[in-house]
């Protein structure tokens, strides 16, 4: 009965419309789910972007472009407009003004908070479009969109409040790829131009645009190697390259890099190669002589060699900048550790262990190779793209944790391809008839031969279908169970791992209730209320943006690590003794020093654990004054307890971390819960700093830098006097006078 009711909706024009509406509503639901799953907890995080956006909204675009920020990198300041990717701020500014124009009163803060979830909905839609270009199965796109919507690998960077470049960049990445495939398929200059437009947008939004800059030329190069040069390829690539390069050069931060730096050279090289091949193809179509084509081939080869040689020459002579360190370290994985500790020190730049892959992608990670294999079935131009993308992205994500973000889209697409293929095969109602014995052999043989020429091993026999309902039922139900498990996994990961922003720590009490540790905000609030507006705060660069945004105080260094020497200066001040550090702090007009200390709570991300990086970075600039070796004991251990080296005990960081710490404990029980060691009963002595503030759980400790002494003593003497010690001279007094008897 139901059949007859439903039937009219599934046939003809009405059927198409029904399916269209269904698809649209499913997509909307996916987008809604993607947004909803990112709302577990809302705290605005990268404060710098928020500050920049506020500045943009308040002062307009042109002022923003010329913005010189004197509240960071004191005393140097930062040419912010020329050293950031403005895409994110401009996007939220545009949304803000659009909503204002529609008379919807909205706070810029709300836009910033909800930008990432909103764009994740768009990413799901872009993934749907992209996947539909890859597969004829209508379900593949929807599955891919659903995966993309909830995959933890992407949620990790796009929860509500994580207002970072990646929030919009992943949408742009996927959408640019979609437009590229579309342009390539149609050979259309319009789609190519659209692709270039979104590429330009991407360049303005995220430094990861280099991934596109290299992936598309690589794709084209592989196609050319496969002998698939076509006018379509020529038109789409040349349109994309010329317009896209012009667009990318409009961003001041990028400027002339696209024609001067090595990581953009592959795009230029492939562009040149295409011109040559296009020329040769053109001549060949007119001159059918075989000798002439051979000659032309030689000509192409020669030109290519000369061009490559010229490129090498230009690189060696320095006209073209060599690979920038960050990108170079992707290939030579040992490079960063030796030459650029500041890159190696960031936890996002560490290589990825396998649990991270599984954590971020769960079952998609093993569906992924199967999906890539599926692409080899047809291997049209767009499938080649998937294969190239898959290999390149899995390499990059293996080298750097943060590039997991570029891998996630292709994993979702590939997994959706294979899953939709499975479901299409096992969800058909019609079963084939059992074969008649022997009859099929002849036709089989013929078909086999036809396929054998150029096909995959698993495709050699003709397609039959699934016979029994039991097979269909078992496979489909197992898949459903896996998918449900995947949804549970994503929810669990999102709520547990990716929804606790770095400024608020959540922990569980013994009775299971959640306990919020809010030391960071407490400390920033203290700074905001108790210090002068232009009090300079010195801290390690990890906390620079937070101090600038939440406490609104100038900092010496921040997360935009553009000046290595300045960071090394802070590192030197932290790792030297007070006598050395104090002049440095005076010279930089430091008023307060902020350290993060996790010893009381067992919070492992504290400064003592990061301390060796400060030492290393400082050693890179002052190898004679700061030596990493001095922070290790004779036996090569990094210790903070009684057995710590003298250099360690005298370093400013150590003193600030453990100052007065022993007073928290009864004698003999002083303990550091991160390092798991017993601390000596006598704490360090600070002469040039005053303890100003310590947060509830001791995570943040703020010290005030003492002014010069009123009567011109040095601080050690003054502090010693304050403590009631007598002057050194008096202790040197000779013994009691005795009467000389002779």
């Amino acid at each position, binding site marked *: 009965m139901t059949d007859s009711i439903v039937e009219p909706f599934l046939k003809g024009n009405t059927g198409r419309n029904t399916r269209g509406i269904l698809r649209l509503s499913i997509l909307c639901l996916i987008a809604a789910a993607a947004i909803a799953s990112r709302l577990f907890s809302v705290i605005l995080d990268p404060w710098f972007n928020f500050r920049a956006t506020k500045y943009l909204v308040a002062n307009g675009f042109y002022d923003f472009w010329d913005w010189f920020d004197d509240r960071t990198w004191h005393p140097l300041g930062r040419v912010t407009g020329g050293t950031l990717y403005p895409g994110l701020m401009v996007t939220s500014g545009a949304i803000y003004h659009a909503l204002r124009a529609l008379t919807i009163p909205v706070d810029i803060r709300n836009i910033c908070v909800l930008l990432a979830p909103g764009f994740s909905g768009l990413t799901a839609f872009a993934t749907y479009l992209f996947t539909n270009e890859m597969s004829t199965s209508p379900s593949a796109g929807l599955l891919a969109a659903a995966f993309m919507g909830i995959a933890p690998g992407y949620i990790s960077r796009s929860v509500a409040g994580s207002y970072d470049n990646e929030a919009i960049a992943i949408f742009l990445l996927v959408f640019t790829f979609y437009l590229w495939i579309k342009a390539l398929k149609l050979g259309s200059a319009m789609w190519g131009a659209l692709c270039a437009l979104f590429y330009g947008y991407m360049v303005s939004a995220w430094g990861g645009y280099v991934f596109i800059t290299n992936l598309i030329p690589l794709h084209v190069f592989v196609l050319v190697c496969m002998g698939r040069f076509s006018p379509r390829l020529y038109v789409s690539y040349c349109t994309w390259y010329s317009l896209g390069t012009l667009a990318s050069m409009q961003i001041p931060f990028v400027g002339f890099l696209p024609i001067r730096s090595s990581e953009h050279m592959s795009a230029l090289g492939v562009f040149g190669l295409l011109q040559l091949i296009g020329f040769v193809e053109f001549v060949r179509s007119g001159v059918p002589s075989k000798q002439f084509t051979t000659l032309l081939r030689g000509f192409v080869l020669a030109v290519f060699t000369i061009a490559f040689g010229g490129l090498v020459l230009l690189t060696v002579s320095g006209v073209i900048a060599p690979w920038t360190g960050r990108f170079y370290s992707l290939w030579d994985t040992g490079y960063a550790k030796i030459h650029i500790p500041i890159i190696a020190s960031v936890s996002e730049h560490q290589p990825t262990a396998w649990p991270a892959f599984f954590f971020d992608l769960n079952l998609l990670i093993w569906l992924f190779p199967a999906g*890539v294999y599926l692409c080899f079935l047809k291997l049209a131009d767009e499938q080649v793209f998937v294969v190239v993308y898959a290999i390149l992205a899995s390499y990059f994500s293996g080298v750097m944790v943060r590039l997991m973000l570029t891998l996630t889209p292709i994993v979702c697409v590939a997994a959706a391809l294979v899953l939709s293929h499975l479901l299409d095969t096992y969800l058909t109602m019609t079963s084939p008839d059992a074969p008649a014995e022997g009859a099929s052999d002849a036709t089989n043989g013929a078909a086999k031969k036809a396929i054998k020429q150029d096909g995959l091993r698993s495709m050699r026999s003709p397609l039959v279908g699934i016979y029994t309902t039991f097979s269909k039922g078992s496979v489909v139900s197992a898949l459903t169970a896996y998918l449900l498990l995947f949804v549970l996994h994503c929810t669990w990961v999102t709520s547990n791992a990716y929804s606790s922003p770095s400024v608020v720590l959540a922990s569980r009490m013994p009775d299971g209730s959640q306990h919020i540790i809010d030391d960071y905000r407490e400390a920033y609030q203290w700074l905001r209320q108790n210090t002068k507006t232009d009090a300079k705060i010195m801290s390690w660069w990890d906390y620079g943006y937070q101090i600038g945004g939440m406490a609104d105080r100038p900092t010496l260094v921040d997360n935009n690590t553009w000046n290595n020497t300045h960071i090394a200066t802070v590192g030197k001040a932290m790792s030297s003794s007070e006598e050395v550090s104090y002049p440095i702090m005076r010279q930089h007009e430091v008023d307060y020093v902020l350290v993060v200390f996790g010893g009381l709570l067992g919070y492992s991300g504290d400064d003592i654990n990061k301390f060796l990086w400060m030492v290393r970075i400082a050693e890179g600039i002052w190898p004679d004054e700061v030596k990493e070796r001095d922070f290790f004991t004779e036996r090569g251990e990094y210790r903070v307890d009684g057995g710590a080296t003298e250099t360690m005990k005298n370093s400013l960081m150590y003193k600030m971390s453990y100052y007065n710490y022993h007073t928290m404990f009864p004698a003999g029980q002083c303990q550091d819960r991160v390092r798991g060691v017993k601390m000596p009963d006598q704490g360090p002595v600070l002469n040039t700093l005053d303890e100003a503030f310590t947060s509830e759980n001791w995570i943040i400790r703020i010290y005030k830098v003492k002014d010069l002494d009123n009567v011109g003593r040095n601080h050690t003497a003054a502090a010693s006097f304050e403590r009631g010690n007598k002057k050194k001279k008096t202790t040197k007094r000779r013994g009691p006078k005795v009467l000389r008897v002779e």
Partner: protein
Amino acid sequence: MHFLRGLLLSLLPVAALAAKNAPVDKFTKFQTKQLSSTPLKLDDAIYAQLTSAPRDYSSVILLTAMEDRFGCQLCREFQPEWDLLSKSWIKGDKMAESRLIFGTLDFINGKATFQSLGLQTAPVLLLFQPTTGPHANPEAGPSRFDFNNGAQSAEQVHRWIARQLADRPHPPVVRPINWTRGIAITTTILASITFLTVAWPYLLPILQNRNVWAAISLIAILLFTSGHMFNHIRKVPYVVSDGKGGVSYFAGGFSSQYGLETQIVAAMYGLLSFATISLALKVPRIADPKTQQIAVIVWGGIIFVMYSFLLSVFRIKNGGYPFWLPPFS
């Protein structure tokens, strides 16, 4: 008598000259020795003489232990770099304007020195500043260069020495052109070109075979997604003993792993993928209903069991992970 007196008189200025030139001689002596073979091979006596107090030259001395029985890998790795550094320095500074002596003291010849310095490890590089002359720095003891980060290149040590010896010439390190290597590379390139031209008709079908490319791509993806690059960069151990005589296959933490562990994981991923491919592509092409039924059950079962095992392995890595599937809980 007269004759004798005359002889004595004629010898006097020579003797006086000799006496006057004695401290200078020390440098000239070492310098001439150095010109013929550098770095100087030292023993306890020469070391003491070289570093004795009134000296108007600097000296860099490598304290090393080259003999096999000490098993000092670092010493052997650094030795060629050290030789290269001293040779190019001496060659570049023929006039001895930097007044720098290079010396090597092996543990075999310098046990007493090692003891008196209290050295437990080798190699150690010491630099002695002059005590007299224009760059005199009599108070400072020898500066010490530690090899914390493994063997250093000649250039790195050169930079260190240059920093210590300010306002004196620092002849750069000149690496000799490695002819053997150049010839080897040329030969290899030519050989491979020859091989390619000869074997091209046979290679072409392989290069154009989709199965080969599919296999290569899948292997690469499996390697990378199972954390191979992590092993490569962090140089993790292949397996680790669990302290009870057995082998521990899985590292405890979320962000640590062993070599074998990643291979097990890659194999699991590979098996799961293969089973999925079989279900999706091979099974619908099986003409015989019975065989097909069995294949579905086998492949479906493999996926289920493997996935369950994978989840249980992941629970080892991440203690709080709440999900599991039946056979391995």
